[in-house]
């Protein structure tokens, strides 16, 4: 048993029970086989001796077979249920690992793998749980039971079985050791050749664009042929073990049958005993032979189990997204500043820090634009404020309290985040807008959509606010998705906005609408906007350049008094009229009426 299998047993009680039950059922089945064989041998020997045979004997035989069928059914049902329970348990534990992670960290890359495991991947455990485990349990019980009965029946035949039986695992291990390294090397080549077809098919539009599709048609055949040859090289070795097992098992039948026949010839053995020995001998080898095939089929399941544990172990230290409930609630961000003090962020496995000694103070009600080339650390800065990443040095404080000491959920309740590519969930439009406030009324949802300039296109959808959004919100343009995300933020009505280039990659019309909605959302709220080269830039009080993980210029074009006025207005909770800012950048926006078309 590999370490990962032992761990499965340790951590999943359902598997331990399953193995125990399988062994018990296998023992019962072996006993029934012994009974069946004895009955059949009895009937045949009686008939041979010329005794009349009553129908009761064959009928009993039929009854035993029916019992075996029932037992086999119970074994399969229990095995499949154990598999269902195992997958369910692992799915539950994996679900916990799907927390937020900063982009391009190992944890984020793990998400795809976790998602695959959760849906299809875990099914690879089925052959392991329903095949390999019961076979292993049977291999521990059945040969012993059969051999004991053989000893009772005819010790000399039993001796032959006892001597040859261990040859199967011994030869299996020897052949396995010899072939393991060779096959491991081959598998990598196989994976590569096997991937060629997908690569070529994915590139077919490109091949056609350059008139290379016919040439590649030949290559597809050639590569498939190379794949076949490599596979056959692997299989010639891999099948050797099954060859050895098969030969030992069948040869043992001959080794038992021929001496038994000769002893019958000499009259030193009766037919009944001989038939019992003949029928029972293959049963002793059966589970051991089945083990080879079961292992072959379950190797994928073991690999999957390894992946599962890797993910579970990796997430162990992260402590989940929710944070401990004991932590204090955060101070009111409408009155206190949010500050970064000399913050560094280094992602695991990266030499260069994503943020390197960043200090920044954000006053309540202030609008800060973050600019800088991609990869400079702008998104990391937002992730930091969201609590998705923790500073490796320095502190993030809210009104002087360290963010790390605050309750993460309570802190995030004060934030509204609009990412560059918001995720739309497989739910209705209304429920997507309700994300932050599941109990919001329909009227509130509609108002939020209106505020985000999303009401018109939503109402034009087939079922309006009840339209189900498919995977990735299919059917909506990037601008429409962005406006739904803004509606989310409007509905949440949080005092602090974190916006990650909400207008990037939009066509001019969408950009104008999203800009107008964003500007409306920013009123009266603190906003930190990644706004590089977008139409939002003119609405910032301060423009901060991020380059190479450092803040380069912190320019505040406004007089200091304006800031404090805004602060006061925010503290009063009254909406601000940003007359000055709308003066500063109105030329980019079409008139209000033009957006509703």
């Amino acid at each position, binding site marked *: 048993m590999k370490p990962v299998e032992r761990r499965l047993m340790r951590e999943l009680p359902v598997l331990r029970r399953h193995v125990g039950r399988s062994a018990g059922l296998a023992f019962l089945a072996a006993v029934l086989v012994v009974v069946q064989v004895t009955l059949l041998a009895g009937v045949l020997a009686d008939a041979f001796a010329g005794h009349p045979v009553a129908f009761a004997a064959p009928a009993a035989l039929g009854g035993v077979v029916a019992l075996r069928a029932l037992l086999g059914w119970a074994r399969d049902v229990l095995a499949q249920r154990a598999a269902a329970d195992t997958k369910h348990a692992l799915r539950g534990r994996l679900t916990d690992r799907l927390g937020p992670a900063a982009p391009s960290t190992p944890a984020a890359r793990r998400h795809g793998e976790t998602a695959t495991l959760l849906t299809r991947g875990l099914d690879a455990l089925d052959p392991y749980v329903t095949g390999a485990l019961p076979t292993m349990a049977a291999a521990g019980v059945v040969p012993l039971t059969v051999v004991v009965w053989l000893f009772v029946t005819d010790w000399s035949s039993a001796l032959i079985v006892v001597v040859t039986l261990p040859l199967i695992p011994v030869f299996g291990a020897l052949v396995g050791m010899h072939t393991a390294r060779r096959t491991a090397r081959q598998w990598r080549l196989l994976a590569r050749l096997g991937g060629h077809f997908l690569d070529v098919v994915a590139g077919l539009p490109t091949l*056609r664009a350059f008139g290379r599709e016919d040439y590649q048609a030949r290559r597809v055949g050639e590569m498939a042929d190379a794949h076949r040859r490599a596979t056959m090289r692997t299989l010639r070795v891999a099948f050797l073990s099954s060859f050895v097992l098969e030969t030992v098992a069948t040869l043992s039948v001959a080794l038992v049958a021929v001496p038994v026949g000769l002893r019958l010839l000499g009259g030193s053995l009766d037919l009944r005993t001989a038939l019992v020995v003949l029928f029972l001998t293959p049963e002793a080898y059966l589970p051991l032979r089945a083990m080879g095939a079961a292992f072959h089929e379950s190797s994928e399941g073991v690999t999957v189990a390894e992946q599962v544990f890797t993910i579970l172990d990796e997430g162990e230290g992260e402590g989940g997204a929710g944070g401990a409930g004991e932590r204090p609630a955060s101070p009111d961000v409408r009155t206190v500043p949010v500050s970064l003090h000399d913050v560094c962020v280094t992602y695991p496995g990266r030499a260069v820090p994503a943020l390197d000694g960043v200090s920044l103070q954000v006053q309540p009600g202030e609008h800060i634009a973050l600019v800088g080339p991609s990869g400079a650390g702008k998104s990391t800065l937002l992730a930091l404020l969201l609590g998705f990443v923790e500073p490796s040095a320095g502190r993030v404080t809210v009104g002087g309290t360290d963010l790390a000491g605050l309750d993460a959920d309570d802190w995030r309740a004060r934030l509204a985040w609009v990412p560059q590519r918001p995720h739309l969930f497989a739910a209705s439009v209304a429920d997507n807008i309700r994300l932050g406030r599941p109990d919001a009324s329909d009227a509130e949802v509609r108002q939020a959509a209106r505020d985000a300039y999303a009401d018109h296109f939503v109402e034009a959808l087939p079922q309006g606010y009840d339209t189900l959004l498919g995977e990735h919100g299919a059917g909506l343009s990037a601008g429409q998705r962005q406006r739904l995300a803004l509606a989310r933020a409007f509905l949440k009505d949080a005092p602090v906005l974190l916006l990650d280039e909400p207008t990037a990659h939009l066509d001019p019309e969408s950009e104008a609408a999203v800009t107008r909605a964003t500007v409306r959302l920013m009123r009266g709220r603190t906003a930190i906007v990644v706004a590089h080269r977008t139409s939002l830039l003119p609405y910032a009080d301060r423009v901060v350049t991020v380059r190479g993980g450092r803040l380069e210029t912190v320019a505040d074009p406004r007089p200091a008094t304006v800031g404090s006025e805004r602060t006061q207005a925010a503290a009063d909770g009254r909406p601000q009229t940003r007359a000055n800012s709308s003066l500063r950048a109105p030329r980019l926006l079409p008139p209000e009426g033009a957006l509703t078309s």
Partner: protein
Amino acid sequence: MTSLYSAAARRTDSRPAVVPPVRPSGGSWPTVRLVRHLLPYWRRLLTAGLAAAGSELAAAALMATASWLITRAAQQPPLASVSLAIVAVRALALGRGALRYGDRLLGHDGVLRAVAGFRTRVYEALVPLAPAGTPAFRSGDLLTRLVDDVDAAQDLLLRILLPTAAAAAVCVAATATASMLLPEAGLVLGVLLFVAVLLVPTTVLAVARRTGRAQAALRAELAAHVVDLSEGAADLAAYGAQGRAAARARLAAARIARLERRRALTTSLASAVLMLFQGAALVAVVWSALGSHADGELPAVHLTVLAVLSLVAFEALAPLPAAAFRLAEVRARAGRLADLFDTPAPVVEPAAAVALVVDGPVGVHIRDLTVRHRTCDAPALDGLSLHLPAGQRTVLLGASGSGKSTLISALMRFVDYEGGSIEVAGRELRDCAGHEVRRVITGMTQDAHVFHATIRANLLLARPDAGDTELRDAARRARILEWIESLPDGFDTCLGPDGTEPSGGQRTRLLLARALLADPPVLVLDEPTEGLDPDAAADVLADILDATRNRTTLLVTHEREGLTGADQVVTIERGRVRAGAAGEGRAAGAPVDR
């Protein structure tokens, strides 16, 4: 060799339909159609089938012969009368392992050959469909599934047909032997085998179909929740909704587990039913043999052999339930493949193509072009007229969904047009062969692919005869030469998951270098800056315009920075060129209104 299906479908295809509605489930008998695709390899497959049958027959014969030997020996005849049986038992015992080994090797070899050929057929069926003819090219998941479906052929042969053939051989041999020994026993055995062979797979298929649908629905639900949880993890956390989403996923997982537990009751029945049949056959055969034996018509030796035959015949059926479950799955995959073979090509090649010869700079005249993706849809291009002047760079701006990419597809003859005309060098594109059109009009498509191969191979794709100088020149003009040369293996660096993964910008520049290397008379570039951040996008666009000076170029983008080098900027809106914008010429300084 072109598939029968696609050829037939193409004949009946009418011009306007680009993607017809796909019939569900791949018509009737998709599995049979899959088998027909594999028929050209029947010689190898027959050999594999015979080997599989031989190895199973050897196992059955070993038990039958051994039981004959023992019963005969009990009559204490002279040794000579059983010596042949002794030799046979030893030979069968020794040979069985070797036969099994050979059977598995022959089986895999034959099947893999057939699958290799089938892959080529699928590829050939896909060629005319790329990229507009099937949704597979628009979704990585669908494409992966398609490639996975092709392996259904392997499952069908190796796990269904070969085991079934071997089981059938044993059944026939056992029934024939039993009939020779005692006709009524043979009849009973044959009938029971036949009923079991029919009943068990049919039941399994019915159960699989019934529960399969429920399971697929639950799985889709779980998958949707998992996508939400993984891809929307940050959104969920930011809005405090993670707990609710996780609870929904757990609920879906619990429902799957409940269904699987319930399903176990029926799916486990098949093997049990098979064993009940085995018991019935054993009892019936033994009872009728006992009767004949009592009447003195059947020698005692045959009695044992008949009992053993009824046992081994049913043991040969043991792989059938698993094969039937596999068949249910193969059916679905074969259905999708059959749909693929049935999909008509989106572009009808002209029966007699006129040659398209281009000499020197050439312009493109597009007049009143109308393209529909589906007959029922609104037109994607609705009377678009545009002139691409020879040797000039035209930039096409437009919102997503405005028809920009459709225009490129129409120019490259990936989609057909139902109205209007595209004229190049005095020829109507529709009258020319598609591959000739793409020799003249090509470049960087939106779904341009970086192959899992070396940088050199990826670039040479566009022009296999290009020399080192041309290669370096194209890379230099795409401003990627420096990066390539900074790699330890330079142009021989392998790209892809186990090689070097280029960044978004590097990838774009590689694709641009490839398009420049192709050096077509009309260069088209579809959204070359998709997925780049605005700074990088502006740089790449400026570089592209710089590199395509004096070349007829159509550059489609939605970025408005870095376009100062364009000769002509046109905006497309709802499938038409925005009124008054066509041919407005070069707007010096600020060509685009921002």
